[in-house]
């Protein structure tokens, strides 16, 4: 049995950690680094920073976050969002990221994957795929933070990305993202992709409790999970109001109202892993 890998995903907009639902309606939660540090100290296996604005401008604060993270946090760091060419990868790696995730630029030019994999090693290049279920039950790939629909089918694109030299895939089924209700019957689709793929896959989004994770493991054999809401809201809930205002630049009343927590079994990475261990799954504890 392979060890489960619990990845904390942090969506970053300028200098803030944000979280949305279905990748929309982003709300500011606080300063990303405070969350990252807490996750590192509480059993998280890996960090995943996603720049959701991905603008060419105003990325300095992202580089600052990456650099501060790599100086103090000694687990792998994936950085994605707005990576368009080899030079962008160099900048992110030089700031201290270990691996990068690429979405739009890879769809536009699949040979970019090969170019990047040859230069930085396959394992450094992760292809992030956002897919939305269509009326005919197929999943199509979306780019530009789900603003643009492509004609690529999810499993087809996964195969292409692998053949072009990607080292890993991060798959988001966008309809489930931020809802914490699990992936339901759509897990079967991921299971098919997992069987076909020879490179590892990370499931991102939609996982609201430990049972959702266990379902995924059992049905897909995937062991890597990228998780945001249940960790973020748990961290916020456990902060006193006074301390919250120190790291949060968001709407604290909203954060304290706990309205958004309903679907989520709030927990920290370490508590989540302890439950998995109790249920006989292998975890890094």
């Amino acid at each position, binding site marked *: 049995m392979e060890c489960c890998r619990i990845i904390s995903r942090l969506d970053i907009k300028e200098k803030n950690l944000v979280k949305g639902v279905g990748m929309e309606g982003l709300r500011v939660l606080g300063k990303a680094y405070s969350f990252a540090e807490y996750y590192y100290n509480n059993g998280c296996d890996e960090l995943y920073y996603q720049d959701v604005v991905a603008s060419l401008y105003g990325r300095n604060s992202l580089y600052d976050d990456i650099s501060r993270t790599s100086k103090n946090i000694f*687990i792998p760091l994936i950085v994605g969002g707005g990576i368009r060419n080899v030079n962008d990868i160099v900048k992110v790696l030089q700031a201290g990221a270990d691996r990068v995730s690429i979405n739009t630029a890879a769809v536009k030019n699949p040979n970019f994957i090969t170019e990047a994999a040859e230069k930085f090693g396959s394992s450094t290049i992760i292809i992030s795929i956002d897919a939305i279920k269509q009326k005919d039950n197929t999943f199509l790939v979306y780019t530009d933070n789900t603003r643009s629909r492509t004609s690529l089918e999810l499993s087809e694109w996964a195969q292409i990305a692998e053949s072009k030299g990607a080292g890993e895939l991060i798959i988001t089924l966008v309809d489930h993202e931020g809802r914490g209700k699990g992936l339901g019957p759509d897990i079967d689709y991921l299971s098919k992709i997992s069987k076909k793929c*020879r490179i590892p896959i990370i499931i991102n989004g939609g996982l609201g409790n430990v049972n959702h994770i266990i379902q995924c493991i059992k049905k897909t054999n995937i062991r890597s999970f990228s998780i945001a809401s249940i960790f973020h809201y748990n961290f916020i809930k456990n902060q006193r109001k006074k301390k919250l205002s120190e790291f949060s630049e968001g709407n604290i009343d909203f954060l304290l109202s706990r309205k958004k927590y309903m679907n989520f079994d709030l927990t920290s990475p370490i508590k989540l892993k302890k439950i998995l261990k109790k249920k006989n799954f292998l975890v890094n504890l």
Partner: protein
Amino acid sequence: MKNKISIVDYNAGNLFSINNALKKLGYHTEVTDQPNTILDSDAIVIPGVGSFKAAMKILKKKKLDKVILHFFKINKPILGICLGFQLLFSKSEEFGLTNGLNLIEGNIKSLAKFKIKSPNIGWYKLIFKNNKKKIITKNNFYYFVHSFFAEPKNKNIIFSYTKIGNFKFCSSILYKNVYGTQFHPEKSGAKGLLLIDKFFIDNGIQKI
């Protein structure tokens, strides 16, 4: 007197994380590709992510291959991580056969040939031989990201094994003044830093 650890810069990425880890532990470090600076230092780290062939080419071009071999001969501590560990071996089958530094007899082989999902990414246990029990911590998982693995000819130098399913491979070696790890101790949390610290403390490297 503080000692200096040089991190060998051969354009193969991830110099920063090992440098940050060593600094956090309190060591005096320098990232360098200058032969004289490296020879003057008290210990070296050979980091690395990327391709074996490209790495060897740059090491040779910068004349760092001879520098590392000399460093080994004068018995100063060497830590090789991931690709930096693989480079110490005789040859690799990555992109055809490529000769390595040949400091350790053995070959670098492909995981895919053994039907292992590749690259292999994640946290795996180290299985130590009995006499090395003293460094086993309760949590024994370390972070791996690799498509190749080392097969040393002399099994006595194997410090730990790791298993992916039923497939068992050498995940670290301890040979004379060399400690080599397939995993990334600098990315394995506090216990990974502990492993790095222990190697340099055991070799008498003093902190700032």
